[in-house]
């Protein structure tokens, strides 16, 4: 028996729960050489900003045990080129775009949301809140729930009501559930979690930080248990809010793990770098695994880990 793979993120239905994570699929074109992007539940874009952005100095990455540190600095062409070149391309290939946006103030995020709504074809707007807020001494928006809420509110107000708005959160904040609740109160339709975790590696030869900026974002399988825990806690506190779960997903079994913890959709990030056809493989593994378990609708798996032991699953 094959399972019904469809899931819903608010008003939007995806063909299956597996998607790419923001900044880990290029424009979609590069990955399309290895994966049929129309087959994926969705493709999340690199966070797009109002202006072109050169990003950070190099070295921008360092490999760490089962993961990597990166400090890319949101290099990208800006919204004009994105709307003219990248979004139409994704749509022409049958991709379902989750467009990630990044900015330095609530009005900037709002302007991006407005432009995306007008463009049409955007399935979900994802707010990357792990961006420095110049009005808050350069701390990230995620570091202050009130600041994060202000951005979410501005974006929700400027986004077409048919397009769900997801707030993307970093795990290394003082009160994750408080932050998540603040975003939901500001009318976020869902949560994406987790972004990378701040980390550092020192080059053993030079005894200097291995990533140019010093600080990097840790990603990959090394962070998976942290990410699963974040999803679990958010689901427990906000059981009706859909979650896009991510952090180190490498196999179909990892997708099941995130869904059981409470994620409705699951994104593949760093593992795309290691294995460019990972998304297609993970989707295949996931399909086989749910069919093998006799799950009728994969949406039933969401939050399974929160049910009392012995509660039946699937069938």
């Amino acid at each position, binding site marked *: 028996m094959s399972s019904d793979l469809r899931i819903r993120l608010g008003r939007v239905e995806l063909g299956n729960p597996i998607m790419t994570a923001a*900044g*880990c*699929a*290029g424009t979609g074109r*590069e*990955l*399309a*050489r*290895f994966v*049929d992007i129309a087959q994926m539940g969705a493709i999340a874009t*690199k966070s797009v900003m109002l*202006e*072109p*952005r*050169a*990003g*950070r*100095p*190099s*070295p*921008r*990455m360092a*490999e760490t*045990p*089962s*993961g*990597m540190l*990166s400090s*890319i600095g949101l*290099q*990208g*062409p*800006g919204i*004009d*080129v994105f709307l003219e*070149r990248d979004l139409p391309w994704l749509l022409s290939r049958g991709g379902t775009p989750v467009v990630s946006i990044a900015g330095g103030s609530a009005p900037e995020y709002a302007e991006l949301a407005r432009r995306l709504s007008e463009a049409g074809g955007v399935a979900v707007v994802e707010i990357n809140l792990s961006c420095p807020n110049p009005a808050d001494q350069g701390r990230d928006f995620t570091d202050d729930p009130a600041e994060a809420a202000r951005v979410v509110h501005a974006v929700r107000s400027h986004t077409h009501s048919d397009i769900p708005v997801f707030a993307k959160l970093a795990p290394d904040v003082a009160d994750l559930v408080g932050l998540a609740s603040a975003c939901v109160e500001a009318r976020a339709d869902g949560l994406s979690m987790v972004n990378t975790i701040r980390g550092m590696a020192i080059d053993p030869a030079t005894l200097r930080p291995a990533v*140019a900026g010093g600080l990097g974002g840790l990603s*990959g*399988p090394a962070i998976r248990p942290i990410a699963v825990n974040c999803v679990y806690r958010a689901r427990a506190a906000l059981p009706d809010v859909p979650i896009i779960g991510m952090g180190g997903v490498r196999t179909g079994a990892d997708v099941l793990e995130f869904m059981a913890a409470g994620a409705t959709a699951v994104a593949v990030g*760093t*593992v*795309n*770098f*290691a*294995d*460019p*056809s990972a998304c297609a493989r993970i989707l295949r593994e996931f399909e086989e695994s749910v069919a093998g378990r006799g799950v009728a609708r994969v949406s039933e798996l969401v939050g399974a880990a929160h049910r009392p032991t012995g509660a039946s699953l699937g069938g």
Partner: protein
Amino acid sequence: MSDSGPVQMRSPVLTVRRVDAYHAITVVAPNIAERFRSGQFLAVAVGGEHSGMLLRRPFAIHDVKPDYGGTVEFLFSVAGAGTSWLAERRSRDLLDIVGPLGRPFPLPRDPVNCVLVGGGSGCAPLFPLAQALRRRGCRVDLVLGAATADRVCGSITARRVAETATFVTEDGSFGVRGRVSDPLGRVIEETRSDVVYACGPMPMLRAVTAMADRYELPTQVSVEESMACGTGICMSCVVPIVGDDGITRMARACVDGPVFRGERVRFDDVGTIPFDALGAPGWKAQPDGRGADREAG
């Protein structure tokens, strides 16, 4: 998934050889061999399926042969955990390989005189380039260098594929003592070179480009930047490159390169974001639309 793009394969190792300080691995990879153009590279997964070494290691393709439907060879020296794992591979082991990746060396339309300059393992991609140039009727001269004699790769093949081969070592243990850029001027003059190709560490590429510039020769350089994906999706491998429109962009070494025109690489600014690069802090779009994003050349 296009016919000319890279593919991912689980390729059986055919042979593992030691060549001086290098290891040479040949894998059976027909789909990569048939797509290959010189200057392109492989991204090889290391450490096995459950390895904590997540990222692929990039290696230039050194040789392609028609045997077994198509084989591909790469040369490497042991630098760390990934390359030591590779050095332990044996024939019939499977390697997870993606390739061919990157922009190849452009070949001249006419049969011109080409000097190819390599440093250390950067000599590896010059051999298939030499063959491709020869097939076009070009004259090929090689300048190959390294720190020590055992790190000069391909010294035996060099004499076969090139009109002349000049060897340079930093310690003088083989050939001329010094750096590859030292004898380059003389080679350019003696062989009446029209074009310079180079592959090796960034400081070497800068010196070679500067020397070629003195003779007003165009240079094609292949850069070595650390790469997380090799496929163009992570933006970790960027280098400041001046585009046709005169605007500097942070270009990806893995897909926009690794081969760039030498005079377009801002060698002095590698590792930084030049203040005038597209999208640098404080950068503003020009009212005439200059600076709209296009791929760097």
